[in-house]
């Protein structure tokens, strides 16, 4: 009797164990699969974040006649923007045209939705940007023929500061983030500011210049 009972218990345990084993094999395979997929997803997500969220076209702004580029917006309220722009400067009365590259950081503290409309106003923007112009006559450090620090300035790199406003229109009533934004900016650069601070005769209007732009938001 006792032996039978023991045998029954033993068989039951074995069955359960067998069942567990049988079940656990595919389960653990699923678990591995799952972890891999999560990893892939995380990996793709982090690269997806690098997909530009908008494109920009800017006229003037001390980086060429036209500049074209891509950018990313981020922050709780999407109040930050980083642009990468490529500009072209024709030769005009000079000898050569030039290409320029710009890294631009924008700050948009307020976005005011106009009630019952697809319009939005961004009453104040502030931008800091660095522009580099390409060409033999422009350099970061003076060529070796000059004594060290003779001019002490990078002629190819300018640091700019600009203030502006924007008006923004949502292209579709709902369900997409496609937007088109029109903006203007008044900007100046480091060397103009240095000049203006040391000369009473230079007016603000002489060191600031206007630029216009369009932003096409996709994501």
């Amino acid at each position, binding site marked *: 009797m006792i032996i039978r009972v023991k045998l029954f218990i033993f068989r039951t345990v074995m069955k359960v164990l067998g069942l567990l084993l049988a079940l656990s094999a595919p389960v653990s395979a699923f678990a591995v699969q799952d972890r891999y997929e999560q990893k892939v997803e995380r990996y793709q997500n982090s690269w997806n974040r690098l997909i530009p969220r908008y494109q920009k076209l800017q*006229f*003037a702004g*001390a980086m060429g006649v036209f500049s074209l580029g891509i950018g990313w917006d981020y922050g709780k309220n999407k109040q930050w923007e980083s642009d990468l722009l490529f500009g072209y400067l024709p030769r005009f009365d000079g000898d050569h045209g030039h290409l320029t590259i710009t890294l631009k950081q924008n700050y948009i503290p307020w976005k005011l939705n106009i009630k019952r409309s697809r319009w939005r106003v961004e009453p104040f923007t502030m931008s800091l940007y660095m522009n580099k112009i390409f*060409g033999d006559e422009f350099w970061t450090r003076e060529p070796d023929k000059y004594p060290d620090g003779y001019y002490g300035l990078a*002629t190819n790199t300018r640091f700019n500061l600009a203030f502006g406003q924007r008006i923004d229109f949502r292209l579709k009533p709902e369900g997409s983030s496609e937007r088109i934004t029109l903006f203007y900016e008044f900007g100046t650069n480091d060397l103009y500011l240095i000049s203006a601070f040391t000369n009473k005769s230079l007016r603000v209007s002489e060191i600031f210049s206007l630029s216009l732009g369009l932003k096409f938001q996709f994501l």
Partner: protein
Amino acid sequence: MKFYPFSIFGWILLLGGCFEYHPYDVRLQEKYKQINQKNLDRLLATVPHSDTVCFAFVGDTQRWYDETEACVEHINRRNDIDFVVHGGDISDFGMKKEFCWVHDIMSGLHVPYVAIIGNHDHLGSGGEIYEAMYGDLNFSFVYGGIKFLCLNTNALDFDYATPVPDFQFLSQEMKDTVEQTYDQTIAMMHVEPGDLVFNNNVKDIFHEYLKHFKNLRFCIHAHAHCLKKSDMFGDGIMYYGADCMKHRNYLLFKVTQDDYSCEVVYF
């Protein structure tokens, strides 16, 4: 820096025609083009006040706009000056706006002015801007029987492909003596022989060459940011160095047939 938020004119200036493509772009309004030629046309249409030719030589204006304004006001108060020469380093960084700001001030002079290129004016596309605004890097004119040579001596800013100083220009100018009637010569430049920006390999030859011009009286330069006066080559031909605008003075030359004077005028 002054700003009047309620001046409508200020806002119009701010909004109108003030797109900037690049600090180093070479896009110029008509009034900023060929300034030397336009001013020489004006000058050569007049005759000297007397048998004395009187001109002012101002040094580096660079980033001293307030001082340059004061200088122009001071020169305008006189009535004995025939013309003004800017000795180079018009700009500090070679940017277009700097050249324009200086011209805006200098064009307030009652008399014509010409500008020589300085080494700072080569920075970035400054050389191209100078050529579009003022014209050739080497030029000359004859006024009151005096030949004025305006020479580019900023050798360090060029490669050997561009001769600085340009002896070919000088020999051509010497040949032109037949056509132009002058009996004295004055040489003007930005960088003086002996400075590191000058091509000192040829500084003696340069001076000898200048002496081939009819009756070389003296030479004038800027660049040093201090007043200078030296019989550089020990032959009695003086080199006068004009100070920069920061120190609020300029040189005033009075040249007659057999004498000349150089005065430092403070303003």
